């Protein structure tokens, strides 16, 4: 579906809607008893991009997002937006999808979304228009008068996303938005996020599935134990990491790669072997492989985000 969000957006020209300025998390600290959730977490998100906030379970992602949304106070540190301390009023221009999804089960979908939009400061008329637009855009236009609890799981997820979007937020904070979605759902979600970022919104989402989302985001901050271990544009990070050389050779013994810095050796088909190398000279490897048998594959691969993460936190 290619309905443009912008042409129907309430409130006039889209370019004027978005307040330029980065969202900045500065030195956030938070502990629960003896557990340190955030240990001086800092990063900056520029508007108009999709920012991935990645890390394993328990890294402090949810705590950081709750602090951004003002649901939890930090023990120390600050969140700034456009250079100023973020206030409660500012946050009404934020959309939030918590990790623990939740809506009023007995409320009708439309009433629910209109209520949320009104809480974010829209008038009744604006709220109703925005609600209808988002329900259509997310393909659940016919479900507006059903109770939330009567919907399928997938449709409840869509309503949950609509709940974060219905007031046309300038900043979108999504905690594990892809969890529980099938590949089609992930593609739908990605499409919506790209459209919003393209229109100038700031989109930040968290995920513990690093490789699943590396195509979605332009910039990432990868966290571990409450601290950023890697940050920057996905492309730059990958280029900075050491590339892998992958070679598949058919009809050969196992001695041709002896003495080269191999990372992994896996037999694929009978009489065929796939070898990965670190820091090996491609020319040397290629000469050896050609001498040994038929080269079926010869590729220089960029490291995945999870490999970069493991390199960063590894011993």
């Amino acid at each position, binding site marked *: 579906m290619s309905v443009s969000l912008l042409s129907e957006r309430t409130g006039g020209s889209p370019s004027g809607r978005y307040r330029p300025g980065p969202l900045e998390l500065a030195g956030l600290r938070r502990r629960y008893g003896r557990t340190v959730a955030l240990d001086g977490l800092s990063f900056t998100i520029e508007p108009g991009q999709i920012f991935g906030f990645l890390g394993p379970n328990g890294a402090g992602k949810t705590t950081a997002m*709750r602090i951004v*949304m*003002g*649901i*939890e106070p930090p023990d120390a540190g600050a969140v700034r937006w456009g250079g100023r301390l973020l206030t*409660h*009023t500012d*946050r*009404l221009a*934020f959309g*939030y*999808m*918590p990790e*623990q*999804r*939740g*809506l*009023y*089960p*007995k*409320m009708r979908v439309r*009433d629910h979304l209109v*209520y*949320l939009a*009104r*809480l*974010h*400061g829209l008038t009744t008329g604006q709220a109703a228009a925005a609600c209808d637009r988002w329900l259509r855009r997310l393909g659940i236009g016919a479900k507006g008068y059903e109770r939330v609890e009567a919907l399928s799981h997938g449709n409840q997820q869509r309503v949950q996303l609509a*709940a*974060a979007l219905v007031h046309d937020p300038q900043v979108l904070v999504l905690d594990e938005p892809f969890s529980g979605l099938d590949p089609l759902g992930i593609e739908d979600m990605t499409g919506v996020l790209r459209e919003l970022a393209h229109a100038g919104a700031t989109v930040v989402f968290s995920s513990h599935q690093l490789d699943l989302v590396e195509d979605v985001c332009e910039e990432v901050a990868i966290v571990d134990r409450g601290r950023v271990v890697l940050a920057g544009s996905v492309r730059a990070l990958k280029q900075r990491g050491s590339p892998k050389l992958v070679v598949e050779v058919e009809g050969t013994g196992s001695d041709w790669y002896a003495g080269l810095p191999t990372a992994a050796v896996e037999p694929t088909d009978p009489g065929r072997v796939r070898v990965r190398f670190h820091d090996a000279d491609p020319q040397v490897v290629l000469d050896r492989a050609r001498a040994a048998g038929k080269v079926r594959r010869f590729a220089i691969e960029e490291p995945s985000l999870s490999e970069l993460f493991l390199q960063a936190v590894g011993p």
Partner: protein
Amino acid sequence: MRAVSAVRLVAVRELRERGRSKAFWAGTIVLLVGVVAATIVPAMLGHHGPRTFQVGTVRAPGGLASSVISDAAALGGRAHVRAMGSAIQARSALAAQTLDLVVEGETTVLVQGPKTDQSVTGLAHLVARDLAVKARLQAAGLPAGRIRGLVRAAPAPVRSLLPVSPDNQASKAIVVAGTIILYFALTAYGGWVTSGVLEEKSSRVAEVILSAVRPPALLAGKVIGIGLLGLGQLAAVALTATIAAIAVGRHLPPSTPEAIGVIALWFLLGYAFYCSAFAAAGAASSRQEQAPTVAGPLTVLILLGYLVSLSVLSNPDGALARITPFVPPLAPLVMPVRMLLGHPQPWELPASAAVMLAATYGLVRLAGRAYSGNILRFGGRVTLRDAVRP
């Protein structure tokens, strides 16, 4: 968004969603039917007009019947006097309650016993006294014609020092009904607050809402919405009861509007006091089945207030009635009884309300903090110390 608009939006949602629920309407209908029944049924079963006493006589002296009839008239009733064939016949009729009273010969007056009501006992005493006086006069040698006139002399009127009017009885009935309704209202609406807060917590919608609304505004909106709905339900009950009472010709004292006003005032004060504590109870639970345990102490306090109000009802100017209006958890149930049936000093209402409001302020702050601290805390039950820690 200003906090006021947020509170209004939350309250309106609460009113609308609850007002739409079948449970609410079912509860309201049951309540209204109950109130109408409580008003109409006693009126239908009640004795209308003067009571007629069934009196049997065995070997009675002449002139007894007219003497019994005038005694019954002195009690505001009538007497139907029958001469019975034998004492056995008379006693079995008495045992079967076809007779209220049996006079045997000139000295014995019999009543059934366990099932004898007060008016029959009163008549029995009057008849026995007449018989005794008559026997004395006979012994003194007075002629029978004189005796009849002396015994049947009209009794001197008895007057009350303090006026007893039907209004007092009716006011008491209104206060009794009002206290029962107050007890149920505080418990029920408190329960709504607890389950409403818990619903937000257990469905996890609280996190979405709290990203736009601060906890105090969410709490205030919820409490105000439920309070307004409750007040509306109470108003419907009061109106229905009044209409039903007028329809069946019940006597309504002129103080009825005042009684309704006083009960409404103390409902508001009591609800304001208890609601934030009920909300804190909801936020401190994680599952529906925990809520009654956590809210239990509150419902016990309300029950205690009701029990105290019952004893204040019988002695509305006693020590208990003078002290408990200054004990905030009890005051909402006790003070209406004291105000409507007792003779409070003019300063007692403002003083009691002031103590109540001060306590409410303290409780709202404490319970509000517990609510904010727990509404997003999932998992096990929250300890009291955890709950109030900032």
